[in-house]
């Protein structure tokens, strides 16, 4: 026994052994807890087999994908995922624009402009997003009823059932998918061309010349893109035609609307709320990053005789971008997760669809894991993309 204790005390003198012991203890505790959770979870139904069956509920917003209540629950779920991606993507782009403009505005020497930005941040940031979603829904529902809808020629129809905008719709006689693929190719080719020309100009240190005409890389790329895309459009016999919205009365006198791109009140409310709410945080990020740059940069730009706009776009923002991107990524992730709040105004995105499935099937836990998995994947995609941009941005002149 004495030998045993002696050996133990010798062993315990090493930091490494003690660390191993602590970790073992910790893992045993966590293991007990996990075991408890798993044993409870095993009593519940854990498979997603019920996703194969008929969903039985309709979804009001379908985009890029046909869905009826006779389709499977998987189909409903993917419709929800597409709706989430759609609203998040548009909101991310618009919120970044709004935030950048307001962030610059907060530091503007124009008092009116900076006051607008200040009031915007202080009023919007300190109220819950949920209130703002409901607020925008109320505003959208206060638009005129469809019997008194505002029409601007036959291009835009505004009523409280939504805003209809002109849109391109596939021509039924022609296979329009080919056009999309060709257009993608043309885009890649023209980008590659302008990139190559600009690079060549940088390396050679002089402008490219073809028969005494200066060639600008970006301009040449745009030109090639326009020529190629317009000619393909006509060669393929107009694969897309303009789709104008129309408002008409049927035989019973009911007003109906059709055609165009439908901007529904639900989509509008969640989009406005997300953009304006997230925009405040991006404003503060942009302002902080600009302020963290040394004042010498602005002064150097001024002494070179650059205008305010030039010094902002050429000197300040490119440098500020480096410290903007990591917190910006965080805001994008928050925005994507916050889009789940649209459940309150019945915009059928991922969370709302999953909640309906939970209610119908009664198997909440596996559906919840599916939600968790989906949001984690979306977050991962955004993070990877932003990390890619971050690497590109930080590499320049770093």
């Amino acid at each position, binding site marked *: 026994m004495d030998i045993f204790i002696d050996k133990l005390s010798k062993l315990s003198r090493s930091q490494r052994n003690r*660390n191993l012991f*602590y*970790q073992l203890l*910790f*893992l045993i505790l*966590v293991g007990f807890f996990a075991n408890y*959770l798993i044993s*409870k*979870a095993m*009593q*519940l139904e854990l498979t997603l087999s019920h996703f194969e069956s008929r969903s039985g509920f309709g979804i009001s917003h379908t985009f890029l994908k046909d869905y009826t209540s006779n389709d499977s629950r998987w189909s409903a779920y993917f419709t929800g995922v597409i709706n989430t991606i759609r609203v998040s993507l548009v909101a991310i782009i618009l919120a970044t624009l709004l935030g950048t403009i307001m962030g610059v505005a907060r530091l*503007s*020497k*124009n*008092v*009116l*402009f900076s*006051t*607008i930005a200040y009031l915007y941040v*202080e*009023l919007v*940031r*300190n*109220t*819950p*997003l*949920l*209130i703002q979603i*409901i*607020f925008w829904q*109320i505003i959208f529902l206060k638009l005129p009823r469809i019997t008194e809808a505002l029409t601007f020629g036959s291009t835009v129809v505004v009523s409280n059932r939504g805003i209809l905008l002109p849109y391109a719709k596939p021509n039924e006689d022609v296979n329009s998918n080919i056009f999309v693929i060709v257009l993608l190719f043309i885009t890649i080719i023209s980008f590659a061309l302008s990139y190559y020309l600009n690079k060549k100009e940088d390396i050679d240190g002089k402008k490219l010349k073809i028969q005494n005409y200066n060639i600008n890389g970006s301009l040449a790329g745009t030109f090639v893109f326009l020529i190629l895309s317009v000619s393909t459009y006509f060669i393929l016999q107009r694969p897309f035609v303009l789709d104008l919205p129309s408002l008409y009365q049927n035989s019973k006198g009911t007003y109906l609307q059709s055609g165009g791109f439908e901007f529904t009140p639900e989509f509008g409310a969640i989009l406005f709320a997300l953009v304006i709410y997230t925009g405040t945080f991006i404003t503060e990020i942009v302002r902080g990053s600009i302020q963290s740059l040394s004042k010498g940069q602005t002064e150097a730009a001024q002494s070179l005789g650059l*205008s*305010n*706009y030039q010094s902002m776009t050429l000197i300040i923002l490119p440098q500020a971008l480096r410290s903007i991107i990591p917190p910006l990524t965080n805001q994008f992730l928050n925005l994507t*997760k*916050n889009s*789940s*709040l649209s*459940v*309150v105004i019945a915009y059928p995105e991922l*969370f709302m669809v999953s*909640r309906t499935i*939970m209610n119908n099937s009664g198997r*909440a*836990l596996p559906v*919840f894991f599916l*939600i*968790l998995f989906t*949001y*984690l994947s979306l*977050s991962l995609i955004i993070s990877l993309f932003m990390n890619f941009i971050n690497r590109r941005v930080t590499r320049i002149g770093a």
Partner: protein
Amino acid sequence: MNQQLKWAYNTFSGSFYNTLITFLSLVIFGFIASNLFGFISTSEWAVVSANKRLLLVGRLPQGEEWRAWSILWISSFLIFSSLKIFVKPSIKELIFITIIFASVCFIFITQDAIFNVIIFSTLSLSSYLFAKYISQTPYITIFRKLLAFMWLTIIPLIFLILLIEDGPKPTLWGGFLLNIILAGVAISVGFPLGLLFALGRASQLPAVKIVCTIYIETIRGAPLVGWLLLAWFVLPKFLPEFWNLNETSVVIRAMIILSAFTSAYTAEVIRGGLQSIPKGQIEAADSLNLNLFTKLTLIVLPQAIRVVIPALISTFIAVFKDTSLVFVLALTDLLQVGRIIPEQDPEFFGKALEALSVVAFLFWIVSMALSNLSTRVERSMGIGTR
């Protein structure tokens, strides 16, 4: 005069773009002002004045209001004496506070409550003056400690007041009271937990690190409404059976979820602070042969938390705003009351904006006060200017 003209010319005009921006700003101001004026001139506030009680305390039974009032009195004493002792507001800030305070009193004063509101305002004023008096006497150190102790025990105290002598069931708590309680519990439970998780994630022991990272990233992975929905459907099945814990009310479940959520987010904030500590500090502590506990409490945490106080406060503001999401659990918090009344009471149809603006105002005041506090802390510590 000439100089002022020059200033005005440079500020509002000067170049083409600046003139354009001034013009656009004026258009925006005009648009907002005309809409605001139109709303105010056509609004009817009966929807708020008839439902003050519901907005503030929800479905708390008649005769139980003294609980809410005494909570208000205690917290007003705490807030206003700490205001003088810890924050030391300037004259401008005092005027702002008074205006906000008066407008809140004005919104919620009723015939029955007039006596209570008078007590509330006298108490606030006298505690401020009392603190002002005591800060000139030697008792200030004891008073400071007393206040700090009271801030630490305020949440258990509120629970005691709400539950003592057969208090109403937690499901009857509602309105603004519920938001305050939920946020208070989430912060006071979530912060210490978050501290532990942050330390665990920064730990050198791989097992601890991995477990803490998994916890934090899982919680942050799904939106809060998702977790609340989980609490609604399956959390009772995971709670142990003794003391009937698996039949706890929805409010307690909301508290559990909100605390777990807060802990994950605070952990991430504190981790940022831990990473900002220079390695030399920890090596110095090691070379003084401090043990882990002393090293953490005397060297690491004071420096780490000091840096992240502004970020912590904005996390707390976010948690407070997120308490409005408990609609998923069918709880009637302030926002739900404000939404339901114009929808269900035929007398107030179409008055949704009025109700919503009062709800937004109440949320705004609390968040605004907290964010001002954070700016003050930031400035007094010189973070960002060093």
